[in-house]
């Protein structure tokens, strides 16, 4: 197994977590006010991975509760949360990005998420948010990232079934060694330069997600920085050079796992180290 202890940044990211306060939709509890359920969850995890423990808590508090895992869904401030996004990405989009738009100063922690077991909003959320669906979606993202790096999905498709499972099992069991032992081969592309970097950019207010083809090197053959990529995607928010450094504050910045990295960061390094387990570097744009 590949040793991964030399990558402290990846480990810190893996261990990042968010405290969540799950609140039951009062219209679904026959008027009873149930105690919220508090839990600290890994940023890299998915809502579908914690559904069963929420159901257990719910069942313990409420007699006669019946609902299958495919029906449970979540919202934050009335907006349904996409179960196929990593939890950290959901928090950065719905809590931190929205906070930057609304000019709020309070950090919304614990994150107050409402739980529903009825009226699944199928027009807004992908249906059937089971563990199996989540695993399928996760693997399809891994495949897409592989396609971007290599121009085919051969690397993932040629993995043995148990190697593929190791990725998901590592995520599911929160085992850094198990996950990164397998994932390192994928993100480092076995030491060869990727054709394109798997990057998605999330603008505020539900704009279409930006996913351009981004090569690791710029026209001068230099490693591309996050700033160059953001400038190409949204030039008015990310000028290429801060002309008067210090005289004007930047219009926008990006969040990766809740932090604002330097825009001069090498994008290849970021994509290999700061990607979510789905192998995509998810950049959430916040307005300053």
């Amino acid at each position, binding site marked *: 197994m590949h040793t991964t202890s030399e990558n402290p940044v990846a480990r810190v990211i893996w261990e990042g977590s968010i405290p969540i306060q799950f609140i039951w939709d009062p219209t679904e509890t026959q008027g009873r006010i149930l105690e919220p359920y508090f839990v600290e969850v890994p940023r890299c995890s998915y809502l579908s991975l914690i559904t069963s423990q929420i159901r257990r808590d719910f069942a313990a508090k409420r007699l006669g509760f019946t609902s299958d895992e495919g029906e449970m869904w979540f919202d934050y401030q009335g907006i349904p949360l996409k179960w196929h996004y990593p939890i950290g990405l959901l928090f950065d989009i719905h809590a931190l990005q929205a906070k930057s738009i609304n000019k709020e100063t309070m950090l919304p922690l614990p994150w107050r998420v409402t739980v529903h077991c009825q009226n699944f909003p199928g*027009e807004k959320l992908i249906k059937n948010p089971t563990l199996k669906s989540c695993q399928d979606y996760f693997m399809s993202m891994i495949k897409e990232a592989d396609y971007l790096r290599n121009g085919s999905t051969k690397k993932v498709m040629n993995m043995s079934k148990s190697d*593929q499972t190791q990725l998901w099992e590592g995520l599911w069991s929160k085992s850094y060694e198990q996950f990164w032992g397998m994932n390192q081969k994928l993100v480092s592309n076995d030491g060869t330069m990727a054709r394109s970097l798997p990057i998605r950019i999330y603008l505020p207010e539900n704009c279409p997600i930006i996913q351009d083809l981004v*090569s690791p*090197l710029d026209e001068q053959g230099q490693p591309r920085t996050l700033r160059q990529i953001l400038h190409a995607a*949204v030039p008015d928010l990310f000028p290429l050079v801060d002309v008067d450094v210090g005289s004007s504050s930047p219009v926008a910045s990006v969040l990766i796992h809740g932090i604002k990295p330097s825009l001069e960061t090498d994008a290849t390094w970021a994509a290999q180290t700061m990607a979510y387990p789905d192998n995509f570097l998810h950049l959430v744009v916040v307005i300053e």
Partner: protein
Amino acid sequence: MTSETHQHRQSGPSARLSYSDFEVAIKAFLHQTRHHTPWSYVEYSPRRGQPLQGYLTLTKLIHSHHTSSGATSTITGTFLTGTTTTIDPADQLLLDELAEQLEDIPDGDDYEQGEETDPVVENSSATTFDYLSVNYHIVFSPSYQVPVLYFNAYRPDGAAISLEEIYESLVPEEWRGAIRNAGLNGGISQQDHPVLNTPYFYMHPCETVPLMETILQNNGSPNGTSFLESYIVTWLSFTGQAIGVSVPTDMVAANGQ
């Protein structure tokens, strides 16, 4: 700019498309199919200050016949223009009328002989006859650099149908096994539409490049333009059949050379 920088643009045609290739291909396809199929071109602004992009949409009624054994066959019906995604109750009468006009052309082996004489007599009986309004989108995938077929199918009451129901009432029986077993998770999945950001089903695109490369190699040496202009017809004739969108055979022949 990033989309062009890393690609070595070959002089000949390529199975991988840039967005501008895709736009040429879908506009050619719109022109070729204008008398057959009312595809429409939808323009959208991907982000402020950038050129508009487009995708194609088609809404089509598909008559699905449920036999008593629960097996089904799909029957291609009348086209509806426009890009409606749900059926308004106000459109219900119109839909009912259209459903009555559907030609009942069996295409599956499981079709039971005795039932095909008069399909519309009991049109109010949802348990016997059903039709779906299917909304198809042809959207460019920047990752895979190919067109991707997105779709949602709705019952007459406007409810979207599930993946299992898609296999049963939209995918012809002879295709089901192959599509269910394709790739890691089957050939059809749900994901967010890249422009609308709401759930749609889609046909997995990761085999499109190998498919189109095979076509390109077996087609002699067409010049780049004609390969691009026939790209969508060729691709759709493989990808669309399984979920009820067909390309007239004379067009495939005319464009395949």
